[in-house]
């Protein structure tokens, strides 16, 4: 993915940090009051026009947290494909909200 011509070339790109996280635990904060913790298997990045709506992620051994109802937990195992449209933040190595 091309960086801006004015970007410092020695700068770490944000998506490179996500790439380094593959194989580790990751904590994903959604736009709604929901958070997901899992092991990151991979992510995609539709280049150019579609890249903003891209960034789907594949996770396994997933736990889903809903914040509002006092941190209720929904545990899903196996693998999920998470649509990137609703992601707000990613925390590499995070374990989720403290409950």
């Amino acid at each position, binding site marked *: 993915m091309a960086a*801006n011509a*004015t970007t*410092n070339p020695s700068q770490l790109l*944000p998506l*490179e*940090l*996500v790439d380094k996280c593959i194989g580790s635990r990751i904590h994903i904060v959604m736009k709604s009051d929901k958070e997901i913790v899992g092991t990151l298997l991979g992510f995609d990045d539709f280049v150019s026009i579609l890249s*903003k709506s891209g960034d789907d992620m594949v996770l396994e051994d997933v736990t889903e947290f809903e914040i509002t109802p006092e941190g209720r937990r929904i545990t899903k195992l196996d693998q999920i494909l998470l649509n990137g449209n609703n992601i*707000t933040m990613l925390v590499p190595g995070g374990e989720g909200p403290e409950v």
Partner: protein
Amino acid sequence: MGQQTTNTVEEPLDLIRLSLDERIYVKMRNDRELRGRLHAYDQHLNMILGDVEETVTTIEIDEETYEEIYKSTKRNIPMLFVRGDGVVLVAPPLRVG
């Protein structure tokens, strides 16, 4: 694919470049605010922030008096990735008092 560095401010993203390695304030959609050190960004405003304090603000309505109660929840996160489409504004940290 030549990349050049320049010290002049030519476009809005250059103002963010000036904040690299500095602490910044990020206002996001859904009533979230972040204060942290900017480590990286890209043209989508995806960012990597370090040493972050996240503030989530909610408004509760008292069922009897109907008054609005503002509550904010804070948490500290050592390192995180911010998805650019949630970012509303980026600024140097607000100085209070």
